[in-house]
């Protein structure tokens, strides 16, 4: 067996990469340790969330009936095993789906199974007006959109158009360089008056194998 056959004393950067297929996130372990500013923390977190999402998307058949909370709990557990201080918190004005802390930094995420654009907007509003308290250590959030229907790109394009039509103060959107089916929005946070940046993240669980028919 690969794993037990190799004996080594020193753990090098190369070995972290070799073991990445067996320990998801291990190759980026040093980057997580070195993320000592707010922006680096957010950037690294998004890289790791994307990795977790790609693992989940490999088996969409497992997520056809799960409620939002169960899927989000699985993402939280992956983050925990990577060393993130991730939780599902019954604080912050309600029950935030996913909170990730590093020192004084905080990122929060709200998860929704896509059923309609107004429903996604309730999630966006929860994130923006209920849970977030925008300051220099907490100015980003994420909307995790679980999509079980075909053509996730179309859903994300329509969601983006719907959001743009909501006349949020100083609203802007921009593409995400890390992930095609994600985008960023920024708008003025009502309570703080500061800019709040949200990453809208698509997780596609569409599963319809035609060979079964």
């Amino acid at each position, binding site marked *: 067996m690969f794993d037990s056959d190799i004996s080594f004393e*020193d753990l090098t950067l190369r070995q972290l990469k070799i073991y990445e297929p067996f320990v998801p996130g291990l190759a980026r372990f040093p980057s997580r340790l070195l993320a000592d500013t707010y922006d680096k923390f957010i950037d690294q977190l998004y890289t790791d969330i994307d990795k977790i999402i790609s693992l989940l998307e490999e088996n969409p058949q497992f997520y056809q009936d799960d409620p939002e909370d169960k899927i989000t709990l699985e993402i939280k557990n992956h983050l925990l095993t*990577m*060393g993130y201080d991730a939780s599902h918190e019954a604080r912050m004005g309600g029950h935030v789906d996913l909170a990730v802390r590093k020192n004084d930094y905080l990122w929060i995420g709200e998860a929704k199974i896509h059923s309609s654009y107004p429903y996604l907007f309730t999630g966006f509003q929860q994130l923006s007006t209920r849970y977030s308290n925008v300051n220099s250590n907490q100015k980003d959030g994420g909307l995790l959109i679980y999509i079980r229907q075909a053509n996730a790109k179309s859903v994300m394009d329509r969601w983006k158009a719907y959001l743009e039509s909501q006349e949020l103060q100083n609203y802007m959107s921009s593409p995400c360089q890390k992930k095609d089916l994600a985008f960023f929005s920024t708008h003025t946070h009502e309570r703080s008056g500061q800019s709040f940046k949200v990453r809208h993240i698509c997780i596609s669980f569409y599963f319809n194998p035609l060979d079964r028919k």
Partner: protein
Amino acid sequence: MKVSKESIVAQIYEDWGEKPQSQICIVLLNYLTHLPKGKHYHITFGSLKVVIGNSYTNTDLLKAIQYLCGDRTRLLDTNFELLEDERAVPLSHSDIEIAQATGELIHPKTGYTVKNFEEKVSLYFVPSSLTENII
């Protein structure tokens, strides 16, 4: 701030459940809390492997190390060193950060570019400040 060992154990079980990492993390927790305080340590992957014994694979241990170095249950801090010609040269976090961003590691003493640096840069661990506050 003092933290009880029981609360850390409970958190480890909450996060890992019946997986081998629960046992590995608790063995390492016991090891770290029994080290004499106020000394400098240089804990390698190999020495942690010795601590946990032969019942677990490298993968099992790597998962546990990644977790114990993280913000959730930070029992270990990580340092880096360059191993060449049987000598170890300490590297700062910014040395590693620049190397990862540029793909080149500059030797902190000679100023030369280190070839194949990923094979020569090793991680080692030290007990975190939390371990000194466990009661």
